[in-house]
């Protein structure tokens, strides 16, 4: 590559604003080199710098008595007792997945796994939150197949079970799919590793894959700009993953940790060598000197610019004392991985890079790592979608038909077609498999069980981002509670449109406030997360989607499961049902109506519900428990019938219908703070008393048994028939 002259035009082509270029030239006091321009561009990109979101993220609650590591490292960590911590994070890989679904999704999984083992934790479970457009859009099926295969292709190879997730279809994602990947690991609390570089004179090493020409500018060009008709040309910015190499990297990293050989470890994700070295030096308040001639390369003739910006996957950075280099190289050799010393730490807080003996970059670390936070303007949208009257929805005549329609609809049907392609057994610790309210994994060597879920209803957040974000946290918490787990902390993945549009910033602020308030109410701090802006195409943004990944610890010796257990058990509804249908899946699917307000939010009622369910679970009073969410009571009950594990009979149920409200609101309304449980007949009174004492509404709805799902006087359908519709729908839809 011929030496390129830098000027304002070149800077603009890189994506820098005029002010940012001005800041760069002022700081260096001369025309920056092309390499300096390159690293400044990626470090100041939205993706790496969080410049538009940082100001708002500070409002989130991040502290709590269990928090071992809050935001700021590669992932957050909380204590679970017995000297152990769980380390977890959710992260987006939206833009690459739309352009190249298999590799985009695969490297998303690879990236989040690295974030976890970089902290010294062995990953024990993953989840994936996926959102696609409607099946009317020509790209949807291609994306679904590619993304699911990519998640499976990487996750299955690395040996971490995928124990849960979500899958949503909505026309709002027609031109921008969402792929949010979550991983959780376990580490001895005292062995948690940091990415903070320490000790002047200590050495900087790279290990793992060689550096190639792939993924150059993925962070700045692809992930920090909206899509347009030229986006397809950005395909070369998508990286290519090698899960086998990552598996070796994982084992080698943990072996280096066990040997106490590294002072700091940082994975190379977005913006590769640049970002990992700048961030480590910045965290340690040090400078760094790199010699690019030492970096193992895939091909000869790579320029300094290309090496600095490559996003080749499966590479790690570490800082170590000179005397430990030989031991680290021995571990890398054992796992057949490349390793090299590429630089050292200095005390001048400068970022210096050499190639072929010539210094090509000399910039202050702080300049790169800490660009000014922006306070972008925000404005509430003028167009309102709140207009809704219950009378807009005519009451259906044939409820059996509505049930059939809903169980086979894209957002309510079984997700088995997806999770059957994911390994959810590996690790020999999965207690509750995908399909239930939350995935539950045992921590081997202990009696501890960790429950995890990922949730967001973007139909609600589109109608009201504050309430919708609150409800995402509420649903996540209920899903954990349904398994008998106490919610402990969250990681959030905030997917939005362009922050340069004030309406999007308003959605963002509102969603942050919603998460803040709900997390404060449940005492579940936000310990890690990720912001993904620019999920929009030609001015059309996705529905605001603050995905909430929540983790908890089981309070019961074994998890509570959602399926009905025995004939003669009694079905009880906990929590109050309001006559509300706006924003519901039923209104959208059956009536084509997506107007109005989300369901009523009552954080105190949610808390009381948690209390009752956890108390009943710990006293072993619950035979089953299932959260009520999309599709309301009828769909929740149907799922209780369908979810019986293979080889067990699918039981039916007979339910009384509340006649004080419209039948469709009772059956399909999505009132929050509700849980459907089944109990032995002799325990009905005890559970009712528990609920009454806590001030939680309780209704004894009916009995478990038979092969029919019956709503008195309204509908009676065979469970087998409904289950077939429910189980086969997705495979037919994706084709």
């Amino acid at each position, binding site marked *: 590559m011929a030496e390129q002259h830098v000027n304002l035009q070149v800077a603009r082509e890189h994506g820098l604003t005029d002010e940012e270029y001005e800041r760069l030239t002022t700081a260096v006091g001369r025309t920056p080199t092309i390499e300096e321009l390159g690293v400044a561009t990626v470090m100041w990109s939205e993706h790496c710098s969080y410049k538009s979101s940082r100001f708002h993220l500070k409002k989130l609650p991040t502290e709590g008595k269990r928090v071992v590591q809050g935001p700021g490292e590669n992932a957050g960590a909380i204590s679970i007792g017995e000297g152990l911590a769980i380390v977890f994070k959710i992260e987006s890989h939206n833009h690459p997945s739309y352009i190249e679904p298999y590799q985009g999704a695969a490297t998303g999984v690879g990236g989040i796994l690295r974030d976890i083992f970089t902290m010294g934790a062995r990953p024990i479970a993953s989840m994936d939150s996926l959102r696609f457009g409607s099946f009317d859009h020509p790209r949807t099926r291609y994306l679904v197949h590619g993304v699911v295969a990519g998640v499976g292709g990487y996750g299955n190879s690395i040996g971490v079970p995928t124990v849960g997730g979500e899958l949503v279809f909505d026309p709002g994602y027609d031109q921008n799919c969402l792929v949010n990947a979550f991983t959780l690991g376990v580490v001895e609390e005292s062995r948690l590793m940091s990415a903070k570089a320490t000790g002047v004179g200590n050495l900087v090493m790279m290990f793992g894959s060689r550096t190639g020409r792939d993924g150059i500018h993925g962070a700045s060009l692809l992930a920090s700009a909206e899509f347009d008709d030229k986006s397809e040309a950005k395909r070369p910015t998508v990286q290519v993953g090698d899960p086998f190499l990552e598996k070796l990297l994982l084992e080698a990293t943990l072996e280096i940790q066990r040997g106490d050989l590294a002072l700091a470890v940082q994975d190379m994700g977005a913006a590769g060598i640049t970002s990992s070295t700048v961030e480590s030096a910045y965290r340690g308040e040090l400078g760094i000197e790199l010699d690019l001639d030492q970096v193992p390369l895939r091909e000869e003739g790579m320029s300094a610019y290309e090496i600095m910006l490559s996003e080749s996957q499966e590479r790690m950075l570490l800082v170590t004392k000179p005397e430990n280099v030989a031991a680290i190289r021995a571990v890398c050799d054992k796992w057949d991985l490349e390793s090299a010393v590429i630089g050292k730490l200095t005390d001048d807080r400068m970022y210096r890079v050499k190639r072929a003996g010539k210094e090509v970059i000399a910039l202050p670390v702080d300049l790169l790592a800490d660009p000014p936070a922006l306070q972008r303007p925000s404005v509430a949208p003028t167009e309102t979608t709140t207009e809704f009257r219950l009378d807009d929805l005519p009451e259906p005549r044939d409820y059996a038909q509505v049930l059939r329609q809903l169980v086979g609809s894209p957002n309510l049907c079984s997700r088995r077609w997806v999770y059957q392609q*994911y*390994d959810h057994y590996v690790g*020999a610790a999965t207690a509750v498999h995908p399909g239930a309210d939350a995935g539950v994994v045992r921590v081997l060597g202990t009696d501890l069980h960790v429950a995890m879920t990922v949730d967001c209803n973007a139909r609600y957040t589109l109608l009201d981002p504050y309430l919708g974000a609150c409800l995402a946290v509420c649903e996540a918490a209920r899903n954990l509670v349904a398994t008998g787990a106490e919610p402990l902390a969250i990681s959030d993945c905030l997917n939005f449109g362009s922050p340069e549009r004030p309406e999007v910033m308003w959605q963002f602020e509102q969603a942050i406030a919603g998460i803040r308030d709900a997390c404060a109410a449940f005492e579940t701090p936000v310990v890690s997360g990720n912001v993904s802006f620019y999920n929009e195409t030609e001015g059309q943004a996705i529905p605001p989607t603050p995905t909430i990944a929540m983790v908890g610890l089981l309070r019961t010796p074994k998890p509570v*499961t959602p399926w009905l257990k025995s004939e003669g058990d009694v079905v009880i509804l906990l929590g109050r049902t309001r006559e509300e249908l706006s924003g519901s899946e039923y209104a959208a699917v059956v009536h084509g109506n997506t107007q109005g307000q989300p369901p009523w939010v009552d954080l105190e009622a949610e808390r009381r519900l948690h209390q009752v369910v956890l108390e009943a679970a710990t006293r072993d009073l619950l035979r089953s428990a299932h959260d009520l969410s999309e599709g309301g009571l009828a769909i929740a009950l149907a799922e209780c019938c369908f979810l019986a594990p293979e080889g067990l009979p699918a039981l039916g149920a007979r339910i009384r219908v509340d006649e004080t409200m419209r039948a469709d609101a009772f059956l399909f309304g999505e009132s929050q703070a509700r849980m459907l449980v089944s109990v032995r007949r002799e325990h009905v009174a005890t559970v009712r008393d528990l609920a009454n004492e806590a001030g939680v509404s309780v209704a004894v709805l009916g009995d478990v048994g038979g092969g029919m799902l019956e709503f008195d006087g309204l509908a009676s359908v065979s469970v087998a028939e409904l289950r077939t519709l429910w189980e086969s729908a997705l495979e037919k839809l994706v084709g």
Partner: protein
Amino acid sequence: MKWGVVTFPGSNDDHGTLHVLREVLGHEAVSLWHKSRDLHGVDCVVLPGGFSYGDYLRCGAIARFSPVMSAIGEHAAQGGLVLGICNGFQVLCEAGLLPGALVRNRSLSFVCREASLRVESVANPFVNMALVGDVWRIPVKHGEGCYIADESTLDQMERDGQILLRYCRDDGSRSRDGADGSDYNCNGSLRDVAGVMNATRNVFGMMPHPEHGADPALREVSWPGSGVPDGLRIFQSIAGWVADRGQRLAVDSMR
């Protein structure tokens, strides 16, 4: 009883298998490194699931050349027991220790679910805590588990009782000719084969994962009150057979 579990680069189920052998079964189990020929005097070698060396050529095609495999070949030649699970089964076929081969699932998709398996033969070291015709439930998880072999090999193995497990419906039934794309046969294996043994009856490979259907605490969550998990019976069968052999040898030496 002493077990050895091989770790190839890319093995995933080595940790889970060691956990089941040590914690659930309470046996001695050691980890065997792929670069070493030392088998530490184990009674049974387990080749676990995962992706040895990435399996970019064919599953198991590279692993067969590793130092540990030459030691395992000698161990098997001397009558030592070898159990290959999933990728381990693929490695054993590639190494020529078992007949046949495993190719891509007919569906072309990875499949992870519970499988029903019909016990076909019980006079062997690997599947003996059962009666012929029993239906076991053990999970499968693989993308390349479609077992193929030529007709005469399949006939011969059927005749000699080398096919130990077959995919079946929950009630044990199979379609007459098998491999017709029936849902119960999750990968399209010829004659519904799920696990086969060699002619000298000391090497066994199976696609389902007994280690993931072995821990009673986990099985209890979904199937309460179902007793000894079927996956555990594989390991118990082997342990029982090794113990019996030990007793026979002791009795012989007294004579």
